[in-house]
């Protein structure tokens, strides 16, 4: 209460200072985030790079029609949805399990090194991650070496040249890279659980398993729900890690194209390599609309389950 009054007294005097702090950020957001979104209107125009930013001819749904009749669009859409669905399931649940494992470990040193080790991959550039796994998955790489040593395969497996492996490789890399980092939030939520609950349950004779099921899991349910909604917005770019484009661009090749070619890659190819800017804008517009739709739907689901929403 008191705080409010002090602010009121100084409002006029300090207002310009506050505005001066905030406005540069807003201007940057407008230029670098909002202008490109507004540029998606090019999907309905005949944009050509020589004419500048404004004054292009209106062509209606021409580019959407072209898009829908292009089989590459459907291929890339199918891959984006399939790979993202897989990734969403695994990269959403893996951190939850990791946090529970770490929490249940009785030794402090082990907790610490596991946690510290598990964030390490998060800090690596995707180029490095991709190079790393490219060499590991090579026919002469260490993974094949180990598989052959254990007599699991005869001839070396061409992991990156066979379409059937690509989605799983994507899932695996995502789990490897981001599980530790994404577990931090769950660990924080677990740390915030009232310890009296556990002690009371223990007195009542509840074992470790029962305490995990009846106290730990329900207590982090809301956190998981919030993350679920937040991640739904990036569903088509690959779920929580949003790595579809990175993987498609850096690990995709002519051999695994049937499963590695995703919508973001398709849009970039058409836009930047073929210079079909309006066409690319049409693709992006569809993608953005779908993402927002997913986000809002997820928020509705959350409301049904928990009775409250993120937004």
């Amino acid at each position, binding site marked *: 209460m008191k705080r409010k009054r002090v602010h009121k007294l100084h409002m006029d005097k300090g207002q310009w200072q506050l505005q001066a702090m905030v406005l540069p950020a807003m201007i940057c957001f407008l230029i670098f985030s909002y202008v490109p979104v507004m540029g998606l209107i090019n999907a309905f125009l005949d944009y050509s790079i020589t004419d500048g930013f404004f004054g292009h001819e209106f062509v209606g749904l021409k580019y959407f029609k072209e898009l829908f009749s292009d089989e590459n669009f459907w291929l890339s859409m199918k891959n984006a949805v399939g790979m993202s669905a897989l990734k969403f399931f695994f990269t959403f649940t893996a951190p939850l399990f990791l946090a529970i494992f770490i929490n249940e470990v009785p030794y402090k040193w082990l907790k610490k090194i596991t946690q510290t080790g598990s964030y390490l991959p998060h800090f690596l550039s995707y*180029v490095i991650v991709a*190079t790393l796994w490219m060499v590991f998955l090579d026919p002469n790489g260490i993974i094949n070496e180990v598989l052959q040593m254990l007599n699991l395969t005869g001839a070396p497996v061409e992991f990156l040249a066979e379409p059937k492996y690509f989605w799983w490789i994507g899932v695996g890399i995502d789990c490897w890279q981001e599980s530790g980092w994404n577990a931090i939030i769950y660990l924080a939520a677990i740390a915030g659980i009232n310890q009296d609950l556990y002690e009371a349950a223990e007195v009542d004779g509840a074992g470790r398993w029962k305490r995990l099921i009846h106290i730990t899991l329900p207590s982090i349910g809301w956190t998981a729900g919030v993350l679920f909604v937040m991640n739904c917005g990036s569903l088509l770019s690959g779920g929580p890690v949003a790595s579809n484009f990175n993987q498609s661009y850096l690990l995709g090749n002519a051999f695994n194209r049937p499963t590695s070619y995703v919508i973001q890659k398709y849009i970039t190819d058409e836009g930047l390599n073929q210079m079909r800017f309006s066409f690319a804008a049409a693709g992006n517009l569809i993608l953005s609309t779908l993402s*927002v739709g997913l986000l809002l739907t997820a928020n509705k689901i959350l409301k049904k389950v928990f009775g409250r929403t993120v937004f």
Partner: protein
Amino acid sequence: MKLKIFGRSREDKAFNIIASILCILIFIVTVYPIWYCLIYSFNDGADAAKGGLYFFARKFTLENYKIVFKNDAIYPAFFMTILRSIIGTVLTVFLSGLAAYGLSKDSLIGRKVYMTLGAITLYFSAGVVQQYLLYREINILDSFSVYILPNIYQFYYIILFIAFYKAIPQALEESAQIDGAGYFKIFFRIIMPMSKPIFATVALFSGVWHWNDWFSPAFFIQNEKMMTLPGVLMRSMSLAEAQQTLQKMTSAVTQASTTTMESVRYAMLIVSVLPVVIIYPFVQKFFLKGMMLGAVKE
């Protein structure tokens, strides 16, 4: 923990053992690939190619690193990466911290609108093609600004800052206000010194992001001299080009060299990972705190 009087049941022991084993496995899986890179990069290339290299370097050599550092492309790229990381991070930390301070004040007129404007940027992205067109229009393609300008403000960082500021006791600020200090003065004199953990956290996030970003060099930069390390690495990923550059690199040193493309590549990876790996354990306790505050806020 406290109720040891009940003794350890069999269930207890089973839990401890299973969780411990899983954690050890997870630790190995996450860290081993990087360890493997490290030993490979210090091992003689021809020897490593025979396989069977698992735990330690077998034939120790520095040859791979010598080749990496003899490459003319590496130094400018290294320099560029450092330059953009430092400039980008300083600007981001300072300006985002300041904007967040303004946004944390209830008396800011239009606060709700600003917050909504910012929050929407978290969910909307128009894609790389639209970015390209914009950067082209405002003439920052192929210049150093393309590394810095578009990424100064990140709303996620601003949220982290605001969460931290809200936890600072108001009394100090109020007394300064009564003494007639303006918001800028309060920010520099009181808020910044008290918010070191969050400044460190955001600096780490931003620094690592700049250090690792391969997107800008790949799509918005063509000039070789402006390339950053991830840009160079990315180019060396496409095999044909990698073969060329790496062969040039290897043959330039000695004919009798036993380094291979692979071993040099591993050395290059280690060189570009090293700064991050060295820094992050030290700032770890800061970013954990920062992240958790953000999580609680959500």
